[in-house]
């Protein structure tokens, strides 16, 4: 058996319905973007699961690292005023 270079990995994003955003559904191997879209169609939309497909080469994705969890998300926990319920309004004001 000859040593073949493995096809790159692609991450697949699919818009399930009109009006929704694309959502990550999984990954697959393909030699290029065009093929990745065709394979994604075969693998991830065989039952009408999509109206649009994005493919991104996995190596092109930058991700936050788990150890950043604290520094990234903790600052927002003490900013409760970003939520509507922070503001107590009198009943007379009605629904707001």
């Amino acid at each position, binding site marked *: 058996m000859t040593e073949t270079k493995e096809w790159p990995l692609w991450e697949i994003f699919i818009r399930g319905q009109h009006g929704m955003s694309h959502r990550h559904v999984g990954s697959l191997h393909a030699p*290029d973007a065009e*093929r990745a879209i065709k394979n994604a169609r075969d*693998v991830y939309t065989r039952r009408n699961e999509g109206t649009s497909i994005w493919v991104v080469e996995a190596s092109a994705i930058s991700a936050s690292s788990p150890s950043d969890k604290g520094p990234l998300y903790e600052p927002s926990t003490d900013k409760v005023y970003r939520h509507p319920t922070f503001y107590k309004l009198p009943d007379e004001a009605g629904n707001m």
Partner: protein
Amino acid sequence: MYAQSIKSTGRAVQSLEDMSAEDREFQERIDRGEKIEPKDYMPEAYRKNLIRQIGQHAHSEIVGQLPEGNWITRAPTLERKANLLAKVQDEAGHGLYLYCAAETLGVSRDELFEMLHNGRMKYSSIFNYPTLTWADMGAVGWLVDGAAIMNQVPLQRTSYGPYARSMVRICKEESFHQRQGFHIMIAMAKKGNADQKRMAQDALNRFWYPSLMMFGPSDKDSVHSAQSMAWKIKMNSNDELRQKFVDETVPQAQYLGLSIPDENLKWNEATEHYDFTGPDWSEFDDVLAGNGPCNTDRLETRKKAWADGAWVREGMMAHAEKKAIAAKKAQHKMATG
């Protein structure tokens, strides 16, 4: 089950007090029901066990295509042929989802194939039995996919995120597999002529015990599963799932007018379960060791498909690289005018 020959570390499960701080935090996350994601900390043994388990599962999906692929061109009607083709295509997809899940743990798909082909990794024993008649397509869908579903449904809650998500997709697709199998059984066992009924019974006779084996060795002989349960990469014990399978399948066989090939099968009022005869475990060991009726054939078919496809994989990669270079050149030309 699809990963029925997993031998974990063999060490007893460590108590929280004995763990390193990192491992304790990891175990506590699992105990809280949190999902572990690829970049999160995980003990090396957890990673290794998962690669073996997900790998075996993936291999089972794609080797599992072979006994059924055998009948695609021999299906009795165009409709049955389309049904079977769709099912076998689904199984290829299941293999793909699972290989991708394993890849997030730092092993490549080619490495996994390599280990399947050189015998270092296993696939489920069930696919080493031959499919001799069309009724076997009914029995496989009904019993084999039925047993697989029983194992896969709880695995949707497994602790490793990518594995759990691939299980969700697989379970969604799987129920049609069992139903199309049962549909074939109805056509043959209930609506068929005497010969067809005989074929249906024969298929059940041959697939019953191999299906029971799918759940893996008896709990008393699988001492290694405690760690997997603690890690939530195994959700139920082998015997528990096997009992559930028997309890659900017996009434279905009765509906079909078929008899389970077990003289000791009897409803037990006290336990509210069926008592049944377990499979012959020496046969199970033998099949796993490579001596089942179809082991050689299945592996040879896999290896041949992989080798025969090499020029396609190479050619498409070379073409993609050439196109990428051409596109870059064209871009450069545009930019420099």
